[in-house]
C-alpha cells in the first residue's frame, strides 16, 4: 500500500457515488492486547460485504492521517486513522491505517463487486 494521495483517492471515492457497493469496515487492536498488557482491552469490530449506496464521499486529513466519510441515505460510514491506500483487483479501493510496527488498526474497503470470502 502507498501513503494516501488525497486527490487520487477522492477521485476514486467519487466513482462509487450512487452505485450499490460492498464495503469492508474494520478496526482492531489485536487478539492479544490484554494478553501482553493486563491493563488493555481487546477492541475490534468488522463488517464485511455490507452493501451500501452513498451520495457523497470525502477523504480529509492533515497530510499524515485521514478520515473518510460516506453519506448514506439513512446514515453514515466513517473511518479514522487511515494512512495508506491501494487499488486492488482494479476496482477495489483499500484504505488502511497501521501502527508503528506495521500492524493493521483500521481498514475501509469499497468495491463494486463482493469482496473475497
Amino acid at each position, binding site marked *: 500500500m502507498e501513503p494516501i494521495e488525497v486527490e487520487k483517492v477522492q477521485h476514486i471515492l467519487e466513482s462509487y457515488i450512487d452505485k450499490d457497493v460492498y464495503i*469492508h469496515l474494520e478496526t482492531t487492536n*489485536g487478539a492479544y492486547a490484554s*494478553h*501482553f498488557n493486563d491493563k488493555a482491552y481487546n477492541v475490534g469490530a468488522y463488517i464485511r460485504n455490507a452493501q451500501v449506496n452513498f451520495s457523497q464521499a470525502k477523504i480529509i486529513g492533515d497530510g499524515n492521517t485521514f478520515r473518510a466519510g460516506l453519506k448514506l441515505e439513512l446514515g453514515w460510514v466513517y473511518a479514522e486513522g487511515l494512512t495508506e491506500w491501494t487499488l*486492488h483487483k482494479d476496482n477495489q479501493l483499500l484504505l488502511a491505517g497501521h501502527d508503528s510496527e*506495521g500492524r*493493521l*488498526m483500521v481498514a475501509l474497503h469499497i468495491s463494486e463487486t463482493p*469482496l*473475497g470470502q
Partner: protein
Amino acid sequence: MNRMEKQVVVILPHPDDESFGAAGTIAQFREQGVPVTYLCGTLGEMGRNMGSPAFANRETLPDIRKEELINACSKLDIDLRMLGYRDKTVEFEDKQEVAKDLKHHLDELEPSLVITHYPEYAVHPDHNAMGAAAVEAVRLMAPEKRPVVWAQAISNNYTAELGQPDIVNDVTPTFDRKMEAIMAHESQASGILGQFRESPALSDDLQEAAKQQLGVERFYVWNFK
C-alpha cells in the same frame, strides 16, 4: 515422548499456530517416522501483521498466508488439510457441526495422538473454540478408539489454574527446524517474534529470545472422565 505414535493429528485454527506452538514436537515425531497431519481451521484472514515492511493487505493476506502455511508444512514434512473456516468466527459456528467435521477427519486418519489448544486457556477465541471442538470430536468417538489428546494452554494464568503441564517437551534438538517453519510464515514471523523482546535488538538476540520463549513446548493430557 516415550511411546511410539502411529499417527499424529494437529488441530489448530491459524496458519502459524502449528509453528509457534508445536513445530519442535512435530519435527521430533517426523524424525521418528510418525505421520503428522495438520487440520488448519482458517487462513488467518483477519491477522493484523502484514509483514515487516508490509507486503500484504487485508484482501491479499488470505492467499499469502495460505502459501506460507503450505511452505511451513513442507518444511515440517507434514500433510495439510485446510478446513475453510474464517478467522475470528470459529466460536460463532455451531460447535457440534465443527466437532462432526473434525471427527470425519479423525475417523479417517485414526490418530493415536491429537494436539490442539486447551479450551478457555488459549487466549484467542478461535484457539479456544477450535480446541473445544477438537476435544468434543474425540469425545464423540467410541472410548476404545479415542486418541490421546494433548492440549496446549497459552494464557498468563494457566499454571496457576491448571497446575504443571503433563508434557514439558524440550525442543532444542529440533529448534532449527522449528525456526524454519516459523520463518516460512513471512508475513507473521517478524511481528510476532518482535513481541518477545522489549527493545530493538540485533537478530542474534532475537534468536536467543525466541529460544527462551519457544524452546519448550508444553501440553496437558486431556482427561475425558
